[in-house]
């Protein structure tokens, strides 16, 4: 695809060029736009909602798309648009908290285990290995069966199941960086372990760690909405997007928008995150000349 470029490099051409050269730069933009939209909806959704979230506003249940109710009505005749605008808060907010916590915890443990003595490293790694071998949905199911479902428990469960993965990735990067000369120099210089971990190692692995945080966010959205879909996640009267799919499952046979739209909402959120991260990491690997 090395066509000679004769047109002046306007923004549109640059975009098309990017697409030709690297396959899918506009997909990354679409992903970024989807992420930004959902973030804004999560922050401002409750103020934008045209109706109170629990109010029955229409006589028609599973109403179709109309001017008065742009996304139809649900199984009780409540406005779907308002319910989605409010529900996005739970889906995005909880997943974001859990993703930041698990990435932060995983990265801190990784840094700790790289700069500490061998036995502590071994202990942390083995502990993380044990948790990684329980599938996240299984862990979530037994946690809910033991403690009952609550928002705090859901976040804790997500952190518990996604910290080991973040730890593994962060540790493998930290081990590589730790072997580089400038870290050895810092060590010989007599710097403290905390300094080596935070000043020498962390800044050099921040980008991949952030990309991993994004991916983890996507997984956690899927886990939490899956749990809500099973009726074991966010409990009524609150509803996240997964609960909205569950409560309107009766409309499936009529093809009601009330069930399709929340499911599509989750899909656009996770696809957006994946496209964005995919784009970011492929650009970085090109820049560093790796594969």
């Amino acid at each position, binding site marked *: 695809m090395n066509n000679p470029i004769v047109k002046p490099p306007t923004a549109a051409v640059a975009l098309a060029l990017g697409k030709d050269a690297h396959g899918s730069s506009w997909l990354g933009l679409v992903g970024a736009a989807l992420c930004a939209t959902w973030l804004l909806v999560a922050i401002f959704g409750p103020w934008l909602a045209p109706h109170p979230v629990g109010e029955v506003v229409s006589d028609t249940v599973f109403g179709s798309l109309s001017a008065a109710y742009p996304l139809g009505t649900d199984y009780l005749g409540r406005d779907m648009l308002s319910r989605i605008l409010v529900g996005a808060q739970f889906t995005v907010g909880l997943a974001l908290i859990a993703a930041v916590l698990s990435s932060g915890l995983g990265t801190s443990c990784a840094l700790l285990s790289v700069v500490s003595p061998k036995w502590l490293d071994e202990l942390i790694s083995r502990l993380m290995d044990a948790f990684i*071998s*329980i599938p996240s949905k*299984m862990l979530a*199911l037994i946690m809910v*069966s033991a*403690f*009952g479902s609550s928002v705090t428990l859901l976040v804790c469960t997500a952190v518990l199941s996604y910290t080991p993965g973040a730890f593994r990735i962060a540790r493998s990067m930290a081990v590589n960086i730790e072997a580089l000369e400038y870290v050895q120099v810092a060590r010989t210089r007599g710097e403290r372990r905390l300094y080596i971990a935070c000043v020498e190692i962390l800044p050099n692995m921040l980008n991949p760690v952030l990309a991993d945080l994004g991916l983890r966010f996507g997984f956690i959205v899927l886990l939490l909405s899956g749990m809500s*879909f099973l009726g074991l996640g966010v409990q009524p009267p609150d509803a996240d997007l997964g609960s909205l799919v569950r409560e309107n499952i009766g409309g499936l046979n009529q093809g009601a928008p009330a069930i*399709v739209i929340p499911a599509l909402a989750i899909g656009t959120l*996770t696809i957006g995150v994946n496209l964005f991260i995919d784009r970011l990491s492929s650009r970085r690997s090109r820049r560093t000349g790796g594969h």
Partner: protein
Amino acid sequence: MNSNTLWLIGRRLGAAIVTLLIVSMVVFAITAVLPGDAAQQSLGQFATPEQVAALRVKMGLDQPGVLRYLHWLTSLLSGDLGVSVSNAVPVTELMAGRVPSTLMLAAATALVSVPLALILGIGSAMGRGGRIDGFMSFFTLMMVAVPEFLVATLAVLIFAVNLGWLSALSYSSEITSPLQFMRTYALPVMTLCCVIVAQMARMTRAAVIDQLDSPYVEMARLKGVSPVRVVLRHALPNAIGPIANAIALSLSYLLGGVVIVETIFNYPGIASLMVDAVTNRDMALVQACTMLFCTAYLTLVLIADLCAILSNPRLRNQ
């Protein structure tokens, strides 16, 4: 097969058993030790302290956690999984009825998804950078990202509601003809396949491309071997190990997907039994189902690792 390989395999098997033991400890700790007093819970808050104490002794809760764990583990190993609280039936009996249907679903999914994923993965590796490859990578990226219930919902809407080919959300246990089998399994299998095929195709593509980038393939290409022959005769035999590894790993994603799919399609398998058990807080059943799923998961990961060990020529030829 030499002693070095055998040693590696033995060590991997040992590690698998140790991991399974640790998993059983975690499961037992979460379900039986941490949540507090099961006796108090089952009697309610109006029970007298004497009643609670008596039930604690009867349930063995007065013993320390380690002893209870050992007791639980030995009875688990001897096949005694306890009695389900919510319907007073032995757990083994409940599970025995459900395991075959889930295995059937898993087998049907594997049968459809493995060949499909191999064709897609190898095909897009051959046309790397081309239009088909670009479309495939976009499509698989989307599929990995969407929740199973979105795929299931859309599949029901298209095939059951709009086209009317299949009946939605209905399951008949009487399967008499192949056609009926197809009608019953088509939607659940299709939903499960979507996610798994995407995973597997991505990993297969990566494994084949890894081989295509190596010097011996370049050599073959330079001496004028046709592209199809390069892939099928030169690259593929060397990529078998990583591909088998990818297949086993992808099939382990089945375990998460099957929970959602069995619930949405009302399919009487082991996963929907577990979801019911969690809803009713039926601990013996939850423990048994979790251990079954975790064992299946660890077995698949073990098979994936063994494929990787066995296919590594550096280990074979030492």
